[in-house]
């Protein structure tokens, strides 16, 4: 057990600190949108110093460093400690770029990676459909080849930032007769292509964090495909792995737990601070124990990235399920300790923490559901983590009909 990063990294940490000190006045301000010049300038500055897109080759616009998990961690720690903007992190950066680098053509890499990481080209993701959520492979949005163009018809849902996006990376069914996982392709196209309609999707928080996107005879050049026809499922799954881990970090959970502690110290009822209520304090301590377990689990996961002999498959697999549920319960405690004030929302002047408690309570319920519901997570943990059998296959209606016809 050695929790230090080693003296060779001390110099690097100093370098990061020094950068932050001298440059943090240039970071985007709260109001600056993802398309503002301030955001783009900051993004370029970060890449230039190796604090963003650090390991992406310089020929594609990145910094071109060797992967070093500890350096990445140090960057995250220092930016986090100083609450300095980490740079633009949209789905184009986190999800599309890795896949392009792995499976894109040289032409695609050159065309898309640099503008994407520099926040000059904003992407949205077109995966989920109203009828294909947990069962993503059942998607029905279809693309038919008509000469040199794909003609796309169908609907996507849960498309965040669709209204800001310049481009979309999108799963569509191109081989209707193939088995369902093998009939999907991965297309890239502009969001201003005729035939695309965006409808904001208001959720329980009252915000439109997501959109529905409708495609009617949307025509897309044939070559804007990543991988081969029918390979879209593998391409998408390579990216999905990237998404799930980041939904519930234990450090954020601990920050929120400290927020509950502050609330309990500051709020009083009948002149007594809530912290003096042993029932709430016991709930707080229970949650703290659970957050600590997740924090040490997270250190173990980090360690396994550096020390290749450590097996953390199960430890990684449970993070999304456990982390989102835990976070939901922390937000719940924050509400409960406030009593009726905990109900405040919107423009209520008695809001604590800008209304974040109720908002996060709902938003984390959304995260429990999104990115693989808790039920899907439990399937994965039991099957891939514990070696238990898959759900027995129920014959699809189509194949049932087919075999009925053949019989």
């Amino acid at each position: 057990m050695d929790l230090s990063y080693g003296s060779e990294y001390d110099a690097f940490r100093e370098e990061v600190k020094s950068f932050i000190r001298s440059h943090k006045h240039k970071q985007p301000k709260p109001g600056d949108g993802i398309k503002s010049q301030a955001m783009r300038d900051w993004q370029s500055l970060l890449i230039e110093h190796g604090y963003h897109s650090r390991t992406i080759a310089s020929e594609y616009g990145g910094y071109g460093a060797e992967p070093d998990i500890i350096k990445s961690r140090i960057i995250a720690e220092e930016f986090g400690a100083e609450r300095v903007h980490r740079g633009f992190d949209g789905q184009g950066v986190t999800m599309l770029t890795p896949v392009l680098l792995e499976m894109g053509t040289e032409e695609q890499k050159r065309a898309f990676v640099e503008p994407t990481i520099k926040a000059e080209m904003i992407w949205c993701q077109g995966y989920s459909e109203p009828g294909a959520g947990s069962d993503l492979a059942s998607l029905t949005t279809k693309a038919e080849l008509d000469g040199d163009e794909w003609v796309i018809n169908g609907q996507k849902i849960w498309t965040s930032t669709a209204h800001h996006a310049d481009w979309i990376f999108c799963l569509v069914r191109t081989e209707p007769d193939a088995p369902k996982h093998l009939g999907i392709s991965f297309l890239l196209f502009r969001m201003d292509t005729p035939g695309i309609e965006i409808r904001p999707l208001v959720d329980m928080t009252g915000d439109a964090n997501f959109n529905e996107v409708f495609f009617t005879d949307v025509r897309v050049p044939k070559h804007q495909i990543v991988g081969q026809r029918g390979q879209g499922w593998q391409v998408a799954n390579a990216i999905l792995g990237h998404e799930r881990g980041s939904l519930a970090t234990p450090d954020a959970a601990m920050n929120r737990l400290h927020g509950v502690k502050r609330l309990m110290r500051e709020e009083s009822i009948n002149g007594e601070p809530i912290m003096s209520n042993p029932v709430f304090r016991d709930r707080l301590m229970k949650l703290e124990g659970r957050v600590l377990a997740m924090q040490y689990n997270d250190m173990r996961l980090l360690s396994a990235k550096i020390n290749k002999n450590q097996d953390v498959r199960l430890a990684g697999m449970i993070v999304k399920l456990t982390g989102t549920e835990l976070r939901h319960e922390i937000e719940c405690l924050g509400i409960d300790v406030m009593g009726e004030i905990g109900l405040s929302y919107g423009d209520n002047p008695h809001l604590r923490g800008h209304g974040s408690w109720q908002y996060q309570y709902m938003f984390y319920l959304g995260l429990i559901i999104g990115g693989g519901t808790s039920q899907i997570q439990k399937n994965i943990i039991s099957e891939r983590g514990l070696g238990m059998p898959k759900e027995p296959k129920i014959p699809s209606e189509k194949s049932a009909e087919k075999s009925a016809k053949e019989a």
Partner: protein
Amino acid sequence: MEFGLSQDQLMLGDSVRKFLASEVPLDTVRQLAAGESDDSSVWQGLADMGLAGLIIPEAHGGAELGMLDAVAIAEALGYAACPGPFLSTAIMSAYLLNAAGATDPLTRMASGEYRVGIAFSDVIGSRKGQVTEADSKLTGQSLFALDATADAYLIGLSDGRVFMIEASELTRSSLSTIDVTQSVCELSFDQSPACHVSSSSELVWQTIHRGRAIQAADTLGAAQYMLDQAVAYSLDRKQFNRVIGSFQAVKHMCAEMASQLEPCRAFAWYAGHAFDESTDEAALTACHAKAHMAEVGQFIAKTSTEVHGGMGFTDLVGLHYWFKRIGFNRQLLGSPEAVRHEAAELEGLC
């Protein structure tokens, strides 16, 4: 021996449910949420059915029914996430005013034209500066008063005295909460003339406990709606070539909801009945019903939303209005922890 709702009570509940199904659809709630309307026309409709005067004596234009009837109605109102001041005007204020002999406003309350809100925070647990009284003039602030558009309010002081004050005599600002169907506001008084109603601490607590029994029934109805919707959605929605309701995980989520919820029905009924019979344990039962239903409701609100998957998170199916109503009932008039503490006190355990 017959434990349950009478034929009359069943019919009353049914007629309210039918009225709400046709007259208070989800759109009503959405309009409220969008600030495009208030709850006045819904309330007038309910008043025309006799709900505003439900427990008001016939002599004052009411139906002179009991708390069990009120419970049956509250369940129907919760099931529809129906807006309006049933809890504050029709139950709490009507009970207190009548019991205190301050019967003047009752006739107008029964007709639905006069709404009397409830500001009891100082009694249940005060946050900051309490309301003080001198020479029948009130000074201070009252937070989270029930009914943001009432014509008058009953103000509960920390010593248990109750004053009534016209809305015109105070400064009022509406407070946004998660639940758009139940309105609350902040009241400010500055030497505001008020009318003494009661000095009985017992009476104000009896009123609060009645309110809690009604909240329990309201949450029961809202939770039943969420369970019904979860089952229906699971039988409609397909994933992996099957309706999701055929997956054991989803079935068991629904079974767990039903297992927790079903006994709450009898509990809510008894909580109402205990007041009608003035049994010794009426207050204790109301505390337990309120706290227990808050916990069950929270579980069902979350679980039903999960069964709905992403749809449950969106506004498209509107499920979240019920989720929030359950959350609102949980915190108002005493959180579960606070109410359980009161229950322990009532039993002499602390």
